[in-house]
């Protein structure tokens, strides 16, 4: 009897030890079981390294991916993926034809297994087509267009960090419920801006507000002058001025909004898409109080701060959500390879579809099988005055969380036929 008890105890201990040793997130293949198609894993990062988005993602996004590879190997061993891992990169200069050309080169000539990042909607869509033609993976992190999971969706394309729907669901809802119900929306008159206007109009109306009017500004904007629309806002006197401009245009709008003292007249500012680089260009104090939606803020919790500290040491700046998103996407891709036991695209796609996970960047993540949108919680953030900042890039504080369901476009509206 005693021997049986002892055996049972030993069995229990051994089972517990095995269970504790296995990493969270499901069964994993041991290193010897990952078989790479061509003996090598090649990760391509294509983004803008010289123009508008160079600071937002750019070369540092490549660093983030390299960090992910190094940390992954540190965790699972040198041979974690069954072979060497190479990270290659190219600058698409926001030109869709260059992006398409580079993507083809990466997939064909360099045997890239996946392409990451790709800001600028037209470039993002161009690469989605190339990925589908080549039957290889593509995870987009930095473009906003919902078409990636809508009209242009395909089997090999995934959309990871954010889209225009999420931005509207977050900012549109919170601002309407808390700051004001009467909106005047201005947007840049091209696909992204029109997409944003539509999403915000929908969100504002859904949560009890009204859009008095919306006006498009010419895009590209030669003069950098938005005085005409701002004067109109001064006349209409809405409670909220919704600004969908991005990048340099956004900086001009905010600078001129401040000059026209619209804030003093009770017209509050809501911004559709805001990056840390925009805050730098306008000045933290000029933007203090502005509320916006983002997938991630580096100072939001300890996990994120840990990553941000490592990133700061490596690159000298605090990470934007694009940097963090690239790290996270690369990591999850490599995890999927381990689950699949191979880097074969179809097998990895199967492992990604329907996968639920959380890491420092994605909370309550679920990769939808139908359209390959990665559902996850989003954050409502607010720019704080420099007096409250603990260090140079400490721009924002988190006001609240938008749950994944609310932040994701309903499948019925997507129009994705894979």
């Amino acid at each position, binding site marked *: 009897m005693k021997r049986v008890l002892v055996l049972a105890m030993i069995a229990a201990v051994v089972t517990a030890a095995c269970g504790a040793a296995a990493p969270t997130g499901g069964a994993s293949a041991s290193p010897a079981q990952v078989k790479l198609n061509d003996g090598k894993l090649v990760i391509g990062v294509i983004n803008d390294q010289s123009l508008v988005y*160079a*600071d937002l993602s750019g070369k540092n996004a490549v660093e983030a991916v390299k960090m992910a590879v190094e940390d992954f190997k540190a965790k699972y061993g040198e041979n974690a993926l069954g072979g060497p891992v190479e990270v290659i990169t190219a600058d698409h200069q926001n030109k869709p034809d260059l992006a398409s050309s580079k993507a083809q080169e990466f997939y064909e000539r360099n045997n890239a297994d996946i392409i990451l990042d790709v800001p600028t909607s037209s470039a993002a869509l161009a690469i989605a087509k190339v990925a589908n033609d080549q039957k290889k993976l593509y995870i987009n992190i930095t473009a906003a267009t919902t078409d990636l999971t809508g009209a242009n969706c395909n089997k090999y394309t995934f959309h990871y960090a954010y889209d225009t729907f999420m931005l509207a669901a977050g900012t549109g809802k919170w601002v309407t419920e808390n700051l004001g119900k009467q909106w005047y929306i201005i947007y840049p008159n091209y696909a992204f801006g029109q997409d944003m206007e539509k999403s915000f109009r929908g969100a504002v109306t859904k949560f009890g507000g009204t859009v008095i009017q919306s006006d498009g500004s*010419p895009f590209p904007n030669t003069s*950098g002058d938005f005085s*005409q629309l701002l*004067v109109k806002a001064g006349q209409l006197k809405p409670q909220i001025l919704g600004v969908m401009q991005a990048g340099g245009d956004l*900086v001009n709008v905010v*600078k001129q909004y401040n*000059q026209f003292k619209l804030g003093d007249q009770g017209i509050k500012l809501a911004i559709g898409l805001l990056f840390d680089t925009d805050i730098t260009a*306008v000045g933290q104090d000029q933007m203090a109080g502005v509320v916006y939606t983002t997938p991630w803020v580096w100072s939001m919790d300890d996990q994120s701060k840990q990553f941000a500290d490592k990133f700061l040491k490596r690159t000298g700046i605090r990470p934007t959500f694009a940097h963090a998103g690239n790290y996270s996407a690369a990591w999850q891709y490599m995890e999927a390879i381990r689950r699949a036991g191979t880097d074969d695209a179809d097998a990895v796609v199967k492992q990604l579809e329907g996968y639920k996970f959380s890491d420092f960047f994605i909370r309550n993540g679920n990769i939808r099988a139908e359209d390959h949108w990665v559902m996850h919680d989003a954050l409502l953030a607010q720019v704080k005055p420099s007096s409250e900042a603990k260090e140079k890039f400490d721009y924002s504080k988190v006001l609240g969380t938008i749950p994944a369901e609310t932040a994701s476009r309903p499948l019925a509206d997507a129009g994705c036929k894979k």
Partner: protein
Amino acid sequence: MDLAYVFIQLFNGLVNGAFYALLSLGLAIIFGVLRIVNFAHGAVYMLGAFGAYLLLQQWSVGFWPALVLAPVGVALLAIVVERLFLRRLYGLDPLYGFLLTFGLTLFLQDAMRLRFGIQGQPYPTPEELAASVSLGPVSYPVYRLFVIVFSLIVCAVTWYVIERTRLGMVVRAATERGELTRALGIDVDRWVTGVFAIGIALAALAGVLAAPMRNVAPLMGSELIILTFAVVVIGGLGSIVGAVAAGFLIGVLASLGAVFNPAFENVIVFALMAVVLLVRPAGLFGSREAS
């Protein structure tokens, strides 16, 4: 359409027109003496704005001194470039000057981007001009009114110097009959460099004026230069008055047109240019063809 609203747009148009006028004026002056169309004029405007930003950032020099220091600094830089590069192209087809300055533009814009990043640097409105004034139902920034008035003064002074003073007379003589002027013992080259510097300074000044209102970024002048070309074609490249008048005129027309259709703003300048080319190829104020 609210008449008061249209009235305000007039002022917005004058502000934009002020920038077009200053840039076209500089371009016309440089063409007048050097026979070079300075493609890099937009980059000079950008350097002026960055100059103001740097003066503030590094040496805490405010807006008012920057109005003088930044254009002077940029002009000195330009003189170096003129001595080193542009001088070699005198007497040649103006096409070469155009191409060289195009290369300069690419170089300067990218170099600034390398150094400062693409996004832009903050620059505040000067304290003294930060107030607003009531223009009818709308509260209009004093700074914008300042831009209009200041630019008009600068243009008027420049016109006066060129048309009414000895310096201007020498310059005009040098551009029209260079050999003869030299034969009379006048050091044309020195005057040419001086006037070139003035043309550059005007563009840099426009940049300083723009810094509180526009994003101070490496590409801030890259689209503006094309518009400036259209403005000088409309005004007449050889004419000082034409450059200024066309600048303000187009600024106002574009703004008023945008009231009816925002897309109009971009296209109207070029449409006007087409009309002028059909009706008066030498430009509205031009008298002889520049070749």
